[in-house]
């Protein structure tokens, strides 16, 4: 019985997925129609034939996607997917699971879009490691919410305060992130009595990004995000001015 239920849920989801894919295929087929197919001027070359067109393969792909999406739609309707598609139970809506994945999604979005480009990498990664571990270790909903609010606030603050790339080296968002990180770390340590694993979180949160960013910048000599960040700027200065001359000279 369980197996049948799971299949029905999947078919209801397939219904929506196929509808979305039909829309996406049609949109991209329309975009493909902007690429000249029958003659016309292509990249400065006129009078060429249909088989030279840059639209041929995309037409085949999006046409194929449209056909397969229609087949999937038919399969889902025949299996009762359309009937279940409008009810939460039908598509297997699980509130706890949606909360869990959305909080993680929000944190990742805030980290990648708001924090990484603007805030010192050690600070923002330390905050994210602390938040993700604290939020999801043990499965406490309230902790996940607090962790998500902390990271989202830091990301949103950085994004709103310094939207232009020219301002990304400013340190206001670094300080906000640092304060939130300290706040979360204190929370983690306050719960670390009964949950021993949490004792190691501050060390991991500091050491992992510190080692990674230093290895990348000084070991592999690669570009790292937010070079002018609060902490990394100091590390880079002392590496080149204080440390490196010790073995270079």
């Amino acid at each position, binding site marked *: 019985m369980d197996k049948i239920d799971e299949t029905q849920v*999947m078919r209801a989801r397939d219904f929506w997925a196929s509808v979305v894919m039909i829309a996406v295929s049609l949109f991209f087929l329309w975009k493909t129609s902007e690429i000249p197919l029958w003659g016309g001027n292509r990249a400065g070359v006129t009078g060429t034939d249909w088989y030279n067109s840059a639209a041929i393969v995309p037409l085949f792909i999006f046409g194929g*996607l449209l056909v397969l999406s229609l087949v999937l739609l038919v399969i889902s309707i025949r299996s009762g997917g359309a009937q279940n598609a409008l009810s939460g139970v039908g598509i297997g809506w699980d509130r706890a699971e949606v909360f869990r994945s959305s909080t993680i999604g929000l944190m*990742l979005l805030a980290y990648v879009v708001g924090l990484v480009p603007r805030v010192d990498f050690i600070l923002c*990664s330390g905050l994210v490691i602390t938040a993700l571990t604290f939020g999801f270790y043990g499965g406490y909903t309230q902790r996940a919410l607090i962790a998500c609010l902390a990271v989202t606030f830091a990301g949103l603050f950085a994004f709103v305060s310094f939207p232009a790339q020219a301002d990304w080296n400013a340190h206001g968002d670094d300080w906000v992130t640092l304060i939130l990180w300290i706040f979360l770390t204190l929370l983690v340590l306050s719960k670390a009595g009964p949950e021993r694993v949490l004792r190691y979180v501050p060390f991991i949160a500091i050491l992992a*990004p510190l080692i990674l960013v230093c290895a990348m910048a000084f070991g592999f000599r690669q570009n790292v*995000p937010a070079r002018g960040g609060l902490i990394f700027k100091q590390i880079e200065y002392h590496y080149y001015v204080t440390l490196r001359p010790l073995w270079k000279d």
Partner: protein
Amino acid sequence: MDFIFSQLAGFGSALVSLTADPLTYLYLIASVFLGITFGALPGLTATLAVTILTGFFGNKIPLDYSLIALLGAYVGAIYGGSYPSILLNIPGTAASAATAMDGYPLAKAGRGGEALGLTTTASFIGTVIGTLTLLIFVWALLLVSKNIASPEKALLALFGILLSGTLMSEDLVIKGWIAGLIGLAMSMVGLDPLLSEPRYTFGWSYLLSGFQVVPVLMGAFAIPQIIDGLRHVEAGKILALKGRILPNLRSIRRYLPTIGRSGVIGTGVGALPGVGEDVAGWVSYGVGKTVSAEGDKFGRGSLEGLLCSETANNACIGGALIPLLVLGIPGSPPAAALMGAFKINNVIPGPTIDPEIILRVVAILVMASLTMFLMGLFTARVFIKILAIPQTVFLPVVMVLTTIGSFSVGGGINDLYLMLGVGAVAYFMNLMKYPIAPLVIGVILGGLFDETFRRSLFLSDGDLSVFFSRPGAAILLVLNLGLILSQLPAAKRVFLRLKGRSA
């Protein structure tokens, strides 16, 4: 015979030059250790290990060291998956799913040490079988592949995507094909390869160069894994390891035919484009169950059952590299990540690949499997301790690793946006049981398919018979059509009727 000796001589000199370099050992030990750790931690996979290391070592160190790091991690991760399978009844990687069926009952019966020792030995022998097959067959195929022209390449790329979609689909096969087409569609973004005409760039200059491979790999493999794995899981009880790990020669000799057969099956499955170690493990397990005298004991703690899957998944590595090196078509998802590393090093796998690289790959695989063997036998207890680390502790670190790795390859923040976007799509696809491997293979092979398909039409003045007038192309076209038609309900009914009649 001369051909085989010349191959062995070439392999020998590659091996000597690698062993003479002290840095080889540093990269080898570190990467195999990291690989076994990734494999042993449920929630991390071999593909993720190779993908993350591609971000780190892909284009930052000389190609030889980069290959050592990636292949070492690949070999280690496939083997590492056996630890949680045997001791926790949780497969560390999909490739070790069949291992748990017999590994855990054996550990429960107090034979965990023996199981782990034999698994380590079988994984080593399996990797060597796959590697030697790679050494011999890659050359024969390279000679044949010199005659492969654009029509064959286009049809082969399509076949790889379709086959991967067909075999990797957990639910409906059509979902695997849709995933492959989404991957192909993603590869259409940017300037087209023949006329440099911009496609689907929406005025964003970053998209002119198309989707970069590493952020796509990171997004497709790492982000869904992180979102899915960050949940509270009751820690399973790790069974105490009883008995000595070092296997005795008598048991190895007894199971050698099983190991040999599984090695050949694993290599064969690996050589199929786009089919990974998990399929190899299950196929070998299924064959073993049918042909073995103790087939009825499979699933209840049979050493033979354990060795069937563990030998095959490691042998699959060498097999998966055959289509990658000969045709530029990855044989498994980790091989797709490896192809990403080749690409960012400006090495184009395929008929024009430098033969020296193939010899080095073979030498590295042999050294990596030996390192894995020694580590497995003498440091197994270290990896068992690693099993106790909760997912919620190491996955946030993986997120940071993924971010900096993805950023450093292209050096731009746009790569991170791409990674996140692909990750979100891949997460929803996972949720709806769409396989991710065909998508990634589609992204990687899309450029090749576009270029060769259009070049074929261009050279034949738009004559479509170019896709069936050449013998190779005709065979591949029949294979593609056969694969599609075999999934139609009417064809399935005919197969069932024929099967019923023959039974």
